[in-house]
């Protein structure tokens, strides 16, 4: 039996008020979640980038150390090479000076250049020529000078002049043996 002609309205728990509440909280929670996911993602990338940067920095550090070692080695090579080149140049000048020192009237037959000394063998017209023209300059260079003379066939004098620097110790023995 029908009591009303109006069709009954269907009842639902999702009333407009309830829908409003759900939408409001839905939007709020989704915003919070988005922020949370963003933060999670950023923290992950920060951590990853930091690891990468630290590794790259360590690699750079290693490379710098290696480069510094190479630089030090090249500088060492350069220093040694320059020392050797200078020694060669000094040696050339010393030999040139030695030959310039010998006057025309004296003829050398042998010259031995030692680390701290000089031995000259030669022939001189007389002792005075030797003493004034060769021994005097030799004395100004070397602290110890020993000369011995013996006559040559043509009336001139053979001489052996041994000249040493003050700190000469080792070569002395070597020279004595050679004599």
């Amino acid at each position, binding site marked *: 039996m029908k009591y009303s002609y109006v069709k009954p309205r269907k009842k639902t728990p999702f009333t407009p008020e309830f829908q409003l509440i759900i939408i409001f909280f839905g939007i709020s929670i989704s915003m919070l979640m988005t922020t949370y996911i963003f933060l999670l993602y950023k923290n992950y990338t920060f951590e990853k980038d930091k690891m990468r940067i630290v590794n790259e920095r360590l690699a750079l550090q290693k490379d710098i150390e290696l480069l510094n070692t*190479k630089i030090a080695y090249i500088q060492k090579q350069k220093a040694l090479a320059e020392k*050797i080149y200078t020694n060669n140049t000094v040696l050339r000048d010393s030999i040139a000076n030695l030959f310039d020192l010998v006057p025309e009237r004296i003829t050398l037959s042998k010259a031995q250049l030692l680390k701290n000394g000089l031995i000259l063998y030669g022939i001189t017209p007389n002792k005075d020529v030797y003493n004034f023209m060769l021994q005097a300059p030799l004395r100004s260079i070397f602290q110890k000078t020993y000369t011995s003379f013996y006559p040559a066939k043509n009336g001139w004098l053979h001489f052996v002049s041994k000249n040493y620097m003050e700190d000469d110790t080792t070569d002395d023995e070597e020279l004595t043996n050679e004599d």
Partner: protein
Amino acid sequence: MKINITRHHIYMITVSVILFLFVILFSFLVLIPEGKEYRQKRLALKKEFKEYYKYENYHDETVAKYKELQSKNRHIITAFDSIFNPQRFQKQHKNYFSSLILSKLNREKDEDSFAVYEVNTTSKISSPTNFYDFLDAVNKSDWIIGVNFPIDFQRDGEMIKSSFTMKVYANNKDKNSTKSGSKAK
């Protein structure tokens, strides 16, 4: 006065309170600590970048210095790397002598961690000038060579017989193999 609250309203209030509590708790317990961590990590990364750029600049400067040294001292570096070849040496320097004889190369005690080889030389020159020119040429040769005492000069007719010792310096391959063989970044 009677307040008429329907069951539906009670459900709505309960759901609202639960959702509100969730939002509050989530914000304070999860979101804010995560935000703090974000700020700290961002600062740490910024600091790390700053440090990295400092190292990068220093590295660039070091590379530039290394390359400059390398290019300025190319001859010396190559000379230290070269193995002494007596035949080539004789060929390069025979112009200064009438005859040039080199003895066998002997390994000497290392100097400053460099390998040292000694070679005795006997030669004949027509004038001391040849010897001076030879000493100049030695400084430009393919090896690092030091002419050493004792040096003997002896008259031999119209020629001068000379004998001297040369020290050849080279990289110590055992110790410096990594140094000489490596390249800059």
